[in-house]
């Protein structure tokens, strides 16, 4: 079903303005200067000139667009013993993400499993439905990237409605989904049929990423299954500060908390907020009992959830290899190092058999 189209560089700006003009919220990577350094982050754009395509990975992942850090589940108003509930909308503002990285786009599809495996989370899927993801081939990587190790690549089209491959003159567009088709119909004139053969996809980036980590998720999983208790966990977790920076910057982490917040004097809202498995409070019982009583157990849970529990349930790892957890960690916890150590041990265990 994939269609090839072309968007020239000079047409990118007008295309974005068309999108905004059609009432859509456009989210794109933009540059931000902080503490003397340049960052890229996904933000709503009004001016197409702000958009940075093909730059470095945005500091925070795309998930906050479909899964806001805090969202209202409903509001209530109270008058004595009477409670009135005001529902939260389940239809959402049309959003187009221009320039998602392949790892961020793929992560949305990975998380779809848990959000819909039994009960269907309308808030997640409502936003997913309202959001079109235009991913762009990744042209920059660093020593923390490892998407190729989890079955993705800098050119992976997973989770994207359109996939943009940059060329000299502009972007070659692959239209991948019905949602993408619909978007194309509305902006048909800006995106003519692509001529000639498909643009060559640069493989240097993929090679560089591959050099960072080679991993067989199946082997990692079988090692994890057998090594819940292992001295390795204690060694690794010593360094961990127990903050949630890794989970909060992870495009695939989806744990949350539900909190009530009174507002004013007569009512309030129940909210869902991001949460992470690293702080002790996550599993602390009211009685004071904590099933994961130390950082070792909590850090192990993070690795287990991503590379053992999730694959056992949903058939794939809960990780898109973006490497943000490595970049943000103040204590230098290195997931690539940990995974290669586990891979190494898995090999050893295998050869010992």
């Amino acid at each position, binding site marked *: 079903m994939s269609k090839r189209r072309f968007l020239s560089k000079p047409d990118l700006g007008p295309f974005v303005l068309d999108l905004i003009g059609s009432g859509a919220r456009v989210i794109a990577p933009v540059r931000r200067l902080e503490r003397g350094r340049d960052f890229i982050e996904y933000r709503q754009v009004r001016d197409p000139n702000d958009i940075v395509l093909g730059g470095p990975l945005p500091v925070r992942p795309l998930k906050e667009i479909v899964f806001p850090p*805090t969202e209202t589940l409903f509001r209530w108003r109270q008058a004595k013993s009477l409670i009135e509930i005001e529902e939260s909308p389940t239809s959402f503002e049309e959003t187009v993400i221009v320039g998602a990285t392949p790892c961020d786009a793929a992560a949305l599809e990975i998380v779809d499993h848990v959000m819909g495996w039994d009960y269907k989370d309308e808030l997640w899927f409502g936003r997913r439905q309202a959001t079109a993801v235009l991913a762009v081939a990744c042209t920059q990587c660093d020593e923390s990237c490892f998407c190729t190790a989890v079955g993705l690549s800098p050119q992976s089209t997973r989770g994207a409605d359109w996939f943009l491959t940059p060329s000299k003159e502009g972007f070659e567009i692959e239209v991948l989904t019905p949602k993408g088709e619909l978007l194309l119909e509305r902006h048909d004139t800006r995106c003519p049929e692509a001529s000639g053969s498909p643009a060559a996809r640069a493989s240097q980036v993929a090679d560089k990423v591959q050099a960072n980590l080679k991993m067989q998720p199946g082997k990692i999983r079988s090692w994890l299954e057998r090594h819940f208790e292992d001295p390795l966990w204690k060694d690794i977790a010593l360094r961990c500060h127990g903050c949630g920076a890794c989970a909060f910057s992870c495009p695939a982490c989806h744990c949350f908390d539900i909190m009530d917040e009174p507002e004013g004097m007569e009512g309030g809202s129940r909210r869902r907020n991001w949460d992470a498995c690293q702080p002790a409070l996550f599993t602390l019982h009211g009685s004071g009992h904590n099933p994961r009583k130390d950082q070792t157990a909590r850090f192990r849970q993070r690795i287990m959830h991503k590379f053992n529990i999730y694959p056992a349930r949903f058939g794939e790892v809960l990780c898109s290899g973006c490497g943000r957890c490595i970049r943000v960690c103040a204590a230098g916890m290195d997931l690539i190092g940990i995974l290669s150590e586990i891979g190494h041990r898995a090999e050893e265990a295998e050869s010992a058999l």
Partner: protein
Amino acid sequence: MGFEPKIVAFVCNWCTYTGADLAGTSRIAMAPNVRIIRLPCTGRIDTLFILKAFERGADGVIVSGCHPADCHYTSGNYHARRRFAVFRELMEFVGIDPLRVTFSWVSASEGGKWAEVVNRATEQVRRLGPFETYPRAGRRVSYERRQDGENAKVRKEYL
């Protein structure tokens, strides 16, 4: 009808509360905008109380206790004085108008002074208007790039 500010007063049990009581029993007329919350000592008044009052809809806050050297617990008000001094300036630094918070010493015998503090604070807050700029709406804002002169827009967005 004009704007009637809601003001929360956190007062110490020993001096200001008694002073406020005296103002009442002496039938001193004062603005009816203040709701009093009594605490043991100014030393017990956490700055979070002030923030919580703003979060839940107060337009202004009064913090009041014993004069220096009069603290029932010897030094609670001295400790509080340092804390409030720093908090006040920090608050100003993040853009919260310090005029919305009145700090005062009112002793048990100063019913008249309490009425003055209440009236002055009420007038002050009335002039400032409703404290809608405090980020109390509980909405997460997404901002476009901030440019100079865009603040008015920025402010409107989170209301």
